[in-house]
């Protein structure tokens, strides 16, 4: 019990002190997950929008695939990316295993289906709602698309936030492809796992607190977006 309280005290002191190692780990976490978010936003919103509005054979299968892949376990993604990037794997020549790039790739694969599936639903619903009106008004396709994406912007940003939340909090994928190497691929979640197993609860807790704060911030942003959207009846 004494240990427990002491760990908390140390954790807050550490978090407040701006410890260099701590900052480095947090910075790398943010860098990896934000880059992954950027990549999966480009791919996910693109795919989601395409499947939402285009009619092609295999469209139903694509939707089922997105929805299924939304629930991919991070360790499975980590394993697949590991196989791809390992020396014997098809992408082994690039030597990316145990680098931040590998972690970015893994998280991108992890959250792209989430962004694609959720944005597909949002864009398709709004597109259907506007469809007869836009046809009646002879709105050119590119203008119709732009109008739908613009009017769905609050919901789409919420989707991106959900993707980021999942990326920053996952441990399985980055552990396998990053390896939790000090000063190179150590991010918050892998550091928490390692420090806990080593018994250094203070650092683990400090990182846990930071992770919680980030996660709460993301949720608060999503909530405020939703209320803004509702207030303006955009939702």
């Amino acid at each position, binding site marked *: 019990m004494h240990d427990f309280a002491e760990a908390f005290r140390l954790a807050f002191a550490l978090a407040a002190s701006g410890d260099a190692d701590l900052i480095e780990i947090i910075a790398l976490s943010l860098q990896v997950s934000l880059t992954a978010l950027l990549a999966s936003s480009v791919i996910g919103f693109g795919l989601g929008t395409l499947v939402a509005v285009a009619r092609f054979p295999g469209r139903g299968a694509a939707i089922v695939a997105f929805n299924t892949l939304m629930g991919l376990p991070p360790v499975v993604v980590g394993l697949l990316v590991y196989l791809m990037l390992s020396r014997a794997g098809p992408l082994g020549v690039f030597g990316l295993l145990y680098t931040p790039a590998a972690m970015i790739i893994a998280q991108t694969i992890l959250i792209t289906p989430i962004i694609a599936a959720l944005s597909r639903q949002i864009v398709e619903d709004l597109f259907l709602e506007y469809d007869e009106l836009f046809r009646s008004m*002879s*709105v050119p396709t590119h203008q119709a698309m732009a109008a739908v994406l613009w*009017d769905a912007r609050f919901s789409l940003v919420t989707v991106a936030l959900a993707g980021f939340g999942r990326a920053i909090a996952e441990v399985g994928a980055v552990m396998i492809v990053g390896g939790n190497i000090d000063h190179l691929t150590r991010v918050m979640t892998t550091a928490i796992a390692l420090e806990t197993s080593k018994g250094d609860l203070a650092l683990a807790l400090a990182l846990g607190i930071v992770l919680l704060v980030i996660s709460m911030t993301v949720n608060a942003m999503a909530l405020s977006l939703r209320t803004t959207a509702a207030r303006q*009846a955009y*939702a």
Partner: protein
Amino acid sequence: MRELALRVDEIVSSDADAADRQTLPLLPLKVCGLTFRAGGRTLIDNLDLALGMHGITMMLGPNGAGKSLLLRLLHGLIAPSSGEISWNGVPLGHSVQERQALVFQKPVLLRRSVGENLDFALRLMGQSSQQRRDELLNRVGLLRLARQPARLLSGGEQQRLALARALAADPQVLLLDEPTASLDPASVQMIEGIVQDASRQGMRIVFVTHDIGQARRLADDVVFMHRGRVAEHAPSKDFFQSPASEAARDFLAGRIVL
């Protein structure tokens, strides 16, 4: 020389488009043997109709008669199973749609402010101006609500906005699908007044309603629909004084439902 003239035509065609909207008349309308089937039912059944150049045509009929379907078919939003629709020889599609505007029974408004909903329509026409926008908003009594989110408006206000948006397109033909069903009396009166004004300024009106009083107030001619057919088409006076079809007599006497 003729080739040259053609090419000049093409070059100025973007300006000409706007003029075409006015100059290539969509009327008269001729509908021949129009049939629309869905779900194993014949919903529009071998329907014939001819509409002249001017005035307000009220399409009257009980619920389920096929009025909304006919309006969608005439506007080219759905394709007939068979039969012909000829808007003065202009093929159905964009060229018809962009000379018409349709006000839906349930207004579809963008998730934007009232003013931005109008801006969208005006920009499509290549003539967005604050002045035109305010003029239209004023006409439907929504000027002071310009910044409100459109979807927070009351039913009557939403339908008035939809009407303003339709007028923004400056259509030759204005199609309205029960635009005043379940609205407050003030909105009904305002919408009827605007439609009559537009008609006086030369806009061709096709107005669907199941409200006998409204048909009587507005109609130059009445198309009475029953079971997917035109049971009767007559000048307003004739229709209300001496309806020729039994279905219309029953409907006017309040004896018809589906």
